[in-house]
């Protein structure tokens, strides 16, 4: 029997908005996934928790504008810890010009404001197969 998809959701740095990350976390849980919700954390704690929790996917959320510094840092730390194959996705207010740069840094997908929950669930289910 295959185990449930495990996903860690964390908010980057000191960003203050939790609505998006909580709503997505609930939707993923309702879609049958196991969700570990961390709240605000720095990249080091996020990477460490991802390994400890043995998740398939790391979902990052930020609306503050810190994404160009902190999101690639999470990917780098995961690689450093030998978990470079873990899928990292990002949600929040991300200016369109930053999207190709983030993808080049190893973020698998970026979900901007207004993204349908179904689209996020579908993407994560496919990645975790």
């Amino acid at each position, binding site marked *: 029997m295959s185990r449930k998809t495990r996903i860690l959701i964390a*908010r*980057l*740095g*000191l*960003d*203050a*908005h*939790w*609505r998006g990350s*909580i*709503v997505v*976390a*609930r*939707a993923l849980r309702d879609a049958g996934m196991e*969700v570990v*919700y*961390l*709240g*605000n*954390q*720095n990249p080091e704690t996020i990477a460490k928790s991802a390994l400890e929790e043995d998740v398939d996917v790391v979902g990052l959320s930020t*609306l*503050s*504008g*810190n994404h160009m*510094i*902190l999101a690639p840092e999470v990917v780098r730390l995961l690689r450093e810890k030998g978990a470079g194959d873990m899928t990292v996705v990002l949600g929040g*207010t991300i*200016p*369109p*010009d930053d999207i190709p740069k983030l993808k080049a840094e190893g973020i698998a997908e970026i979900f*901007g*404001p*207004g993204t*349908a*929950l*179904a689209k996020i669930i579908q993407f994560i289910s496919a990645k975790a197969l």
Partner: protein
Amino acid sequence: MPRELFQKTAIRGVRKNAERWQANCYAAQKEQSRNYNTLSGLPVKALYTPVDVEHLDYMRDLGFPGEEPFIRGAHPTMYRGRTWTQRQLAGFGPPEETNKRYKFLLEQGATGINGVFDYPTLRGYDSTDPDARADAGKGGVSIDTIEDMRALFDGIPIDKVSTSLVTCQPICNITVQSMYFANAKARGIPLDALTGTSQNDFLMETAITVAPGVLPPEASFKLSCDGIEYCAKYAPHWNPISFAGYNYRESGCTAVQEVVFTMANAIACAEEMIRRGYDIDSFAPRLSFFFSSHSDFFEEIAKYRAARRLWAKVMKSRFGAKNPRSLILRFHVQTAGVSLTAQQPLNNVARVSYQVLSAVLGGAQSIHADAYDEALCVPTELSSLTALRTQQILQHETRVTHTVDPLGGSWFLESLTFDLEEKMESLLGEIDRIGGIVKATDKGWIHQEIADAAYAFQRTVESGEQLIVGVNCFQIEDEVLPIALFEVPETLAIQEAKLARIRKERDAAGVERALSDIARACEQGKNLMEVIVDAVPARITEGEITAVLKRNYGTWNPPLF
């Protein structure tokens, strides 16, 4: 004895005819199939008649503007006497940059300052803290020491212009408001000449922007009340707290929760001030509120009116307030950022216009209109200006300000106002039964309520029950962004250099003394603003003050999910 406005026989006739019309005329037609509810889930009927407000007692339920129960307006003349304050939110990067934006907005006709702070400042960190560096200058202006405060308001006549300090969390407010006051003193401006508002809301720290390692609810609440007490003593024209319903709403609250959570918070503050020995009428006139203007046009207008009537009732029945000013609910409005779309961003100008209109029809004292690019970035100069112009067009061209409470007496609006007020009273009773807002927060009840409401709303968007233009209908495939986005100017390097210089220049013994004064006041349970206003001129940093506070009060991990 209530004196009902409508004659019973006349109402009977209207009811009979309304039933006839419903059965014979309306029911024969087709309705589009959808739910006719308000955004907060209250049912809306096809038609309202006097029957829906048959028990209306004009003097008891509505009265006159500037008189109890204040539902028709906080002041007798409303906008004929004084236009609402046009207070556009601004803040980004180092203080020198935000100072230019403040001046730009004032030159363009803004009538107040609305200063927002970056994430590290709001959470009590220095820009250079390892956990804060990536957020320095993001979402607001960066403040580390009193020097930054001096630069932020340089050349701005703060004895004439009123300033709203969006110091959301008390851990931020206790320091940043102290810096503002200390800077005023240094400029020779007495505190009783200052007009403005601090946000200073403990729910912002413990429920709305939940993060591990914040101050425990009781400690955060204590700091908030220290600000109220300080202003009651020294700064009588300063609103020391703005119950931030706007932010509660942005996090997911319904209109009812938004108002009730602010009111439960205000009730707790009033109880604490009375416990500290203050008469209700000595501080209540300075308690102020901050609400959202969301996309349900009529529900928002009814919400403001219901809140005014409920507040008058609460202040009178719970606290026996005698000064009429204690009964008046005054509020600032921000149009709902959460309703803005990143898709087809210029559509947001239309959304914001309707939202500003509902705030004006609801009798707001001060308004920030959102900029069309807020779902994408910090507003540019152009988008900020367009938002300000939206307010000015409403003020000067539409003539909606000519009469006070123009929708008062609408059967629909009055009926909706009663319905909302009833729901608000019942939810307020629920919080009373839990033991008040501080306890409800400590238990995680507030967090759960808001998260449930946020998720419920999102599911209506997901199912298509709630349509959002450009998001789940009328989308444009592969849209090319029609606007230029703002880039936050370099902040960290500038703040880092400033802090390094200040740390070298400042008098070490003075710093030591300032910080130990704060620590001692903590231990003795004294009012901390009293000490911090005098301590910040020694150029101690916000992070240093936070460290003292957290050492004394400990930290708290709010329920997260």
